[in-house]
């Protein structure tokens, strides 16, 4: 039975999306991507080294296998984010963009106002916009209304590993929007990813949680399994929580 994640015109069978930053080497990146089973892989846009040194990341990522999702990370203004998105589209020939407009260096929380404004413009320009946002249902709805293909509320600050800090808001977001909800940022370990998926999220995006682990490749596999397990548990429908015990074995026929 297939369980397809649809984002705009794109379809994916993996609900785990992974970043490519912070790995010790390109080889480690490749191995972690493979172990994660992810199909969507985020990349960042940066100035090329004019002196010609350094190899291209794209030499190490099989673009037939992975769908690249360029981000606008480290953009602090709407204008920077728009420029970065347009450059990414030109470089990769993709309409996909993970829109980030950062509002503050310390928390890396998004500037929601600028994000919404940029999203509106990018949607008009034909981009498939996946915006990084706070876990605010009203904001999520506004992003949906301007035509974003998904919404990506943070679980906790980027790279913090604090996990799902406000599962109730995530639940309300899930009830509020029809577009896919991808939890982005803050996932620290496998159970965090599983919780996001058990809540009913459509996917999870992470980078540091894998790349920063002592054994990134092993953690990539753990995340793959956690996302899968969480998704299955969500679909299966968990039991009600009860205060007291309910016997699992029949009470009749006792000796």
């Amino acid at each position, binding site marked *: 039975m297939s369980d397809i994640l649809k984002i705009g015109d794109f379809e994916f069978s993996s609900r785990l999306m992974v*970043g490519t*930053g912070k790995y010790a080497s390109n080889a480690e990146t490749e191995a972690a991507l493979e172990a994660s089973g992810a199909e969507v892989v985020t990349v*960042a846009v940066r100035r090329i080294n*004019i002196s010609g040194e350094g190899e291209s990341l794209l030499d190490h990522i099989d673009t037939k296998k992975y769908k690249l999702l360029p981000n606008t*990370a480290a953009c602090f203004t709407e204008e920077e984010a728009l420029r970065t998105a347009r*450059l990414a589209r030109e470089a990769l020939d993709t309409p996909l963009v993970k829109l980030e407009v950062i509002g503050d260096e310390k928390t890396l929380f998004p500037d929601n106002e600028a994000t919404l404004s940029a999203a509106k413009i990018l949607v008009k320009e034909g981009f498939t916009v996946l915006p990084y946002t706070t876990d605010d249902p009203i904001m999520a709805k506004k992003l949906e209304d301007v035509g974003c293909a998904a919404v990506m509320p943070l679980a906790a600050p980027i790279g913090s590993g604090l996990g799902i800090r406000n599962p109730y808001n995530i639940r309300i977001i899930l009830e509020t929007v029809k577009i896919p909800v991808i939890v982005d940022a803050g996932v620290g370990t496998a159970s965090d990813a599983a919780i996001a998926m058990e809540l009913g999220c459509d996917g999870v995006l992470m980078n540091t949680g894998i790349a920063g682990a002592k054994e990134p490749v092993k953690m990539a596999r753990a995340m793959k399994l956690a996302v899968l397990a969480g998704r299955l548990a969500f679909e299966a429908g968990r039991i009600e929580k009860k205060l007291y015990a309910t016997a699992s074995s029949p009470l009749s026929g006792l000796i």
Partner: protein
Amino acid sequence: MQIKINGDKRQVRDRISISELLEELNIERQGIAVEQNKVVIPKSEHNEKIISEGDVIEIIQMVGGG
């Protein structure tokens, strides 16, 4: 003439096209994008697009990121 590439000043010959500049810099076309004075120049226009004195050129590629 002097132009700015990725934040650094650089001397290039007059009436150089974007294609010629990329060639001179030994930059492969795959997976890159060029911006001239904050406007993205599509690959299909690299041959005819001429760079002028004082232009600000940005050439980007993809790097690891989350």
